[in-house]
């Protein structure tokens, strides 16, 4: 892997985890109703 790959991977992992948690909280809220 090149440094560019590591950089893109960091952004994909970081943003993916945060937005994934946003989605999980809202799905839980919707199912809870």
């Amino acid at each position, binding site marked *: 892997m090149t440094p560019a790959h*590591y950089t893109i*991977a*960091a*952004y994909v992992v970081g*943003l993916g985890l945060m937005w994934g948690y*946003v989605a999980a909280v809202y799905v839980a809220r919707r199912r809870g109703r």
Partner: protein
Amino acid sequence: MTAARTNTLGTLFWLVTAAAFTGAVALAFAYAPVERSMGIVQKIFYLHLPVAINTFLAFMVCFVASVGYLWQRRACWDDLADAAARVGVLLCSVVLLTGMLWGKAAWGQWWTWSPRLTFSLVLWLLYVVYLLVRGSIESTDRRALVGAVYGVIAFLDVPLVYLSARLMPDIHPASVSLAGPMKVALAAMFVPVTLMTAGLIVARFRLARHRAAAGAAHEIEAAAAPKPMNVRFDGGLI
């Protein structure tokens, strides 16, 4: 405020956060210059540092809410501490993962047991255990009390993470000097990451309050329901 209005405001909030993220990532990659010694991998820094600072903020909210619970013994403080700890663990995971990717590209290894990295891992473990301990206690009051005491003690690791690279020899940089456009890109990334942290803590807190209200309503319904006439000695319906 009506539920529909709250949902519209929530959607608007996340749209603004997504737009801010798009702008900040564009600034990091298109506006900030490529750093001379580290190259493109230095751009991980624009995400890594704001998420690290917000990890501390989330754990500080957990600490303040824990103190609030110990002071007032109100369930909302406990729900806030739990929400902040969950978000803090998520952000701390992002910090560790982006740091490892940076380390592999810049130092040639995924991990090294330097003081700051070690204290960061300890911080992550402390709050993962906090969530596991909470999950293992059934009594609501006892869970809140144990969580509050733990939440106060666990926060002691945060200053250690911050000071470790400053007070001890460490491969992790303690401070960096940035050119003007780099400072702009870094400041821009603080906006969506801070919005994300606040929004997630509020959303998770509201989910917990919603569940608590639903649970209380269920208990009231169960208490008001007519008792069955034929009940065995073990409580089961015939």
